[in-house]
């Protein structure tokens, strides 16, 4: 029994680690999409910043420097997306797709040019990564039943970026509902002309949202290559940006819903990797592929309208044009 409890806690612990980039990207997606800009470039921004973080960390031996450059690169990509889709009123999906393709090609090309390791960065050393941090008292109370074990196994022992991700959710929720910027952000995605006629710039509000999304994707990317992993591998995001997008939709563009969806998706992935090769009673080999496919199936089912109604921001995908 104790052993099963520990197994469960370890799975939750893994869930937190797997869900971190999803949570960061989903919050990024909420900012972009609440402002009315479709953001499929979460994937590309995360990939590019993962590469930038690992490269800079490797060259400067500083994980923090890597993180800062990663955020910078990701914000630049966000601004590029804004230039194409807000200022030049291009198609937001195509602009996002272009960023993804750009990231996919550029990371490998530049990676080979710098390190000559087939697009990978060298394996990062201790100081070049964000290390897990044991919270105070984790060892002392770690043996207390339930509360103590949860504290030690699930809450403690992560790197700072994991906690950052969870904090981001709270901050996002507060910004959206309690601040002036949040009010304007929600308005611009629903009815940009209302904001315009109230004397607030639609373009500025959207750019600001895209910059915030860029920062969050940058952190997610840095997490992948310099905290969760120890170096950049080509295509290392492996569709996580799209899963985050799905989680955001699953969570109905709300921070809490998106968080729960990310945790669910993360949990399924953690379970799948724990069950790899395990023989279950009655079923036989664990259906790992099926478990991994569940997030996608759930998203499709949601979008088809079976699990409540997903209401996207009304003006999403439409460039704002004032003059006829």
């Amino acid at each position: 029994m104790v052993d099963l409890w520990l197994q469960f806690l370890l799975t939750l612990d893994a869930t937190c680690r797997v869900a971190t980039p999803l949570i960061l990207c989903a919050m990024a997606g909420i900012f972009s999409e609440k402002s009315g800009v479709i953001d499929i470039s979460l994937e590309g921004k995360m990939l590019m910043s993962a590469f930038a973080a690992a490269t800079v960390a490797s060259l400067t031996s500083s994980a923090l420097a890597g993180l800062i450059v990663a955020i910078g690169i990701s914000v630049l990509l966000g601004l590029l997306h804004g230039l194409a889709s807000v200022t030049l009123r291009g198609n937001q999906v195509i602009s996002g797709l272009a960023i993804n393709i750009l990231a996919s090609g550029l990371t490998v090309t530049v990676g080979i040019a710098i390190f000559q390791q087939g697009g990978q960065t060298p394996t990062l050393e201790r100081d070049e990564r964000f290390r897990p941090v044991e919270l105070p008292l984790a060892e002392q109370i770690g043996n207390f039943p339930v509360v103590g074990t949860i504290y030690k196994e699930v809450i403690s022992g992560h790197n700072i970026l994991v906690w950052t991700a969870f904090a981001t959710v709270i901050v996002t929720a507060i910004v959206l509902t309690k601040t002036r910027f949040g009010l304007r952000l929600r308005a611009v995605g629903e009815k940009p002309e209302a904001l315009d006629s109230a004397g607030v710039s639609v373009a500025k509000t959207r750019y600001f949202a895209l910059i915030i999304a860029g920062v969050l994707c940058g952190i997610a990317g840095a997490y992948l290559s310099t905290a969760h992993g120890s170096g950049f591998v080509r295509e290392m995001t492996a569709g996580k940006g799209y899963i985050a997008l799905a989680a955001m939709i699953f969570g109905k563009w709300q921070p809490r819903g998106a968080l729960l969806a990310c945790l669910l998706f993360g949990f399924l992935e953690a379970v799948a990797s724990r069950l790899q090769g395990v023989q279950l009673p009655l079923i036989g080999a664990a259906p790992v592929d099926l478990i991994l496919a569940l997030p996608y199936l759930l998203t499709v089912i949601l979008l088809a309208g079976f699990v409540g109604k997903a209401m996207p921001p009304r003006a999403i995908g439409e460039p704002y044009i004032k003059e006829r």
Partner: protein
Amino acid sequence: MAQPNEKPSGETSLPLAIDLSNINKRFGDVHANKDVSLQVVSGHIHGIIGENGAGKSTLVSILYGFYTADSGSIKINGVATPIVNSADAIARGIGMVHQHFMLVPNFTVLENVMLGHEGGLRIDVAAQNARQTLEKLSADFGLDVDLDMIIEDLPVGLQQRVEILKALFRGAEILILDEPTGVLTPQETERLFDVLRALREQGVTVLLITHKLKEIMAITDDVSVMRAGQMVAHRKTFETSPPELAELMVGRKVVLKVDHSPASPGGDVLVVADLCLNSPGSAGALKDISFTLRAGEIVGIAGVSGNGQSELLDVLSGITPPSRGGFYIDGRYISRKTPANPAILRDLGVAHVPEDRHKRGIVLPFSAAESIILGYSAASDEGEGWWLSPETLDTHCRRLMQDFDIRPPNPKLVSGNFSGGNQQKIVLAREISAQPRLLLVGQPTRGVDIGAIEFIHKQLIALRYAGCAILVVSVELDEIMSLSDRILVMNNGQLVGGLTRDEADERRLGLMMAGIGADDHSIWASR
């Protein structure tokens, strides 16, 4: 007849809230405002009247900073002021109630009013302050509205109040209203006018844009008339009259009344029996609609737009199949199980002039000759078998252009380049020339100038004399009342009542349109 762009005379002693001179604005080839000048006396209700496309909306959009003028100057309260965006206009004390409301549908009233004027980074603090200010404004001007309601749950009349509150909250001393009554029932319009009078008493200057003569006469102190992008006249309202204004708007004498003798209806053409339409969400559903339409009779359907009229036309024209019940055309039953598409109905003698002519009436990039045979291209005289004959098309189109006074009479001209009135005549010519048994007409004169309205109404009456059954759906009550032999009123997807031509007056129709009597829980019922 006044000269174009005449200057207002005298009045120099009164302080001017707005002083525009020689405003010009072009959109591509269209010269929307030509040397427009306008002087509005502080504390007056000033009307601008003109037909659709006369440039009224462009002018006030320039004043509110939505567009910038190509040239010309703007003085507000005597001070020259460049207005390049809405923030400038708001800062100068100008507020605007747009024709299409600028409200975020899923926000509360309070959030909408605060938006862009929060007065701090945190909105919970701002909300408390705003609530106090708004409660005072509501009391001062009789603008009651629940601040915590979600906008999309409010009737349009109340949404409009929110727009007015929004402007006042931002400190507006000059309030512009662009076609504010288009979406209101007559009672709601009266209430709006009460609010405007209260505003005037408190010293607010009101600029009212409309194409309805009656409203100008009812509420304004001064009136300016626009035609084809130019300001053609300024009058004091008590010195002018509807016929004079109509003449100034159109540029020639207009007959405002149509000749309408009692109908002598024949047999039943359309019998609608317990017709229902389900639709996702409650809006747009039809509930148990039953009525009969006879040959040689015009039945008008009145109602505030969005109460199921469009859906009724869609079902009767075969675009949407009914969910339950159905209707008979000359005895043939159409229902969910025995559906009919528009082509089948056309063969049964049903013609349809759709509400939205750009979407469904014509194909904008097609030539007039092509648009004028849409749906009837299989008829034998337009070509031989599979082939369209350009010559026959051309002659056919020329003939109809002459009969229906379509200008310019050029079959090759692209449909989108005709004026609204002439586009509507193209659709009418097509449908009427098919000699239908039943004609369904949605918004016969929406976006059509007064001259063309007169012509279209005459055509419909003539068709009635010829024995056609005509169903007219319109949001213009005057139009319904002047054309119809009988009037049915729709509210919330149901027919809530019917009146004969003689029984109908605005007050009775207005109450029925608001659903009073049919729905006692109506938001207006308690007032």
